[in-house]
């Protein structure tokens, strides 16, 4: 009986030991994805040619989705005419976790019908703001005072614009004022302005 039992026990133990006859080392990676996300935090359209109700803005998620995510803001009106001018103010906010380099915005201006419509445009950028100092450059400029505050040739009167691109850190902001003036065209036409933010990881 011992001749049977002893080999049987050895085999049992050996086979369990075999189970443990492997060795490993391992490498563990713990990675946290952050984001680069600069967007138009807020915007305003200032003109005295038409009432606000004739200015349509499309910043909703659904409408942005319809624009394929390519543009951050769409402004339109059916009250365009020669001489129509408008100031578009935008505050860009780095809501991501990493610094971003912000390039000049991309504007696509379309008139319908397009016959003979021409326009001029200029952009002025201010910043970089880390706190509430942007109010003088944005919040305090309203429909009631923009003609006295904004100059089509120099931007905000008494303020010095900066050049793009600029690098803005997380939570920092810049303010951009764009002036558009339609010079020629039919007596009445539709205007659609699409604006895209161009930024990348700095």
């Amino acid at each position, binding site marked *: 009986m011992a001749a049977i039992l002893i080999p049987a026990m050895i085999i049992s133990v050996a086979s369990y030991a075999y189970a443990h006859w492997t060795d490993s080392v*391992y490498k563990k990676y713990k990675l946290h994805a952050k984001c680069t996300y600069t967007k138009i935090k807020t915007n305003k359209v200032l003109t005295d040619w038409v009432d606000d109700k004739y200015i349509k803005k499309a910043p909703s998620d659904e409408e942005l989705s319809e624009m394929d995510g390519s543009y951050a803001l769409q402004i339109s009106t059916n009250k365009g005419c020669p001489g129509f001018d408008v100031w578009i103010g935008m505050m860009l906010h780095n809501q991501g976790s990493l610094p971003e380099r912000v390039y000049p915005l991309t504007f696509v201006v379309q008139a319908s019908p397009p016959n003979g419509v021409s326009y001029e445009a200029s952009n002025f950028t201010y910043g970089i703001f880390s706190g509430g100092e942007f109010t003088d450059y944005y919040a305090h400029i309203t429909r009631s005072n923009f003609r006295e505050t904004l100059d089509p040739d120099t931007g905000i009167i008494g303020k010095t614009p900066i050049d793009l691109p600029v690098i803005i850190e997380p939570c920092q902001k810049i303010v951009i004022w764009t002036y558009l003036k339609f010079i020629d065209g039919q007596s009445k036409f539709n205007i659609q302005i699409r604006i895209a933010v161009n930024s990348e990881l700095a």
Partner: protein
Amino acid sequence: MKTLRYHHRGPSRTEGRLLPAFLVPILLITLSSFGYAMYPSNLLTTFATASGPEDISITDCLVISYNGFIIPPKISWNDTELVFEDDLLYPGWELKLVTEITNIGPMPVHIWAEIKHWDGASWIPINEDDLLALFRLDYTNGFYNDTGPDGKWFTDDDTPWTGRHGDYRLWPDPPGNKVYQKEHLLFDAQDHPELQDRVFTFKVNVNAAANGNNNHGAG
């Protein structure tokens, strides 16, 4: 004169009960323990404290390329584990890493790599395709012998590892007792904002066994 007689004596009543009482459990233990031995998933769970003849060790680690924001890269390692952490991943983030693994045991071993990710409760096996699909992590790895003639890793002339005799075994004595695992991680998440603020944890096991898996994980 006495004559010695030998009588055949049958098992006593007690012995007759003892024999099956011992034999049956032993046979069961034998079978079950071999079965246990053949279960690869169970094998993997035991490696951390294993001290059998198979013995591999991390003996060096080189960050070849890293474009993240944590300077220097947050990496620590000892002979059994390497931990890399980065909490500022961004689209385009990239890491190239080479780990030297040495057989410090007495016998040649097969080695192979496997990937697992932490799902919050346990480690789940995952492959490279799923790492890319789920986390946009483009991950490749492979075992190499050396840098090739140019002396630089991650170039076309890096020499793939085949083992001393082309048998994909890591030997306990030089030459052929070291292998280099190249790993390339690229966070390809440019159009995947849904991954923002997500934490991914995964690990790459390098296993060694005398009669191991022949999938050498060259990627």
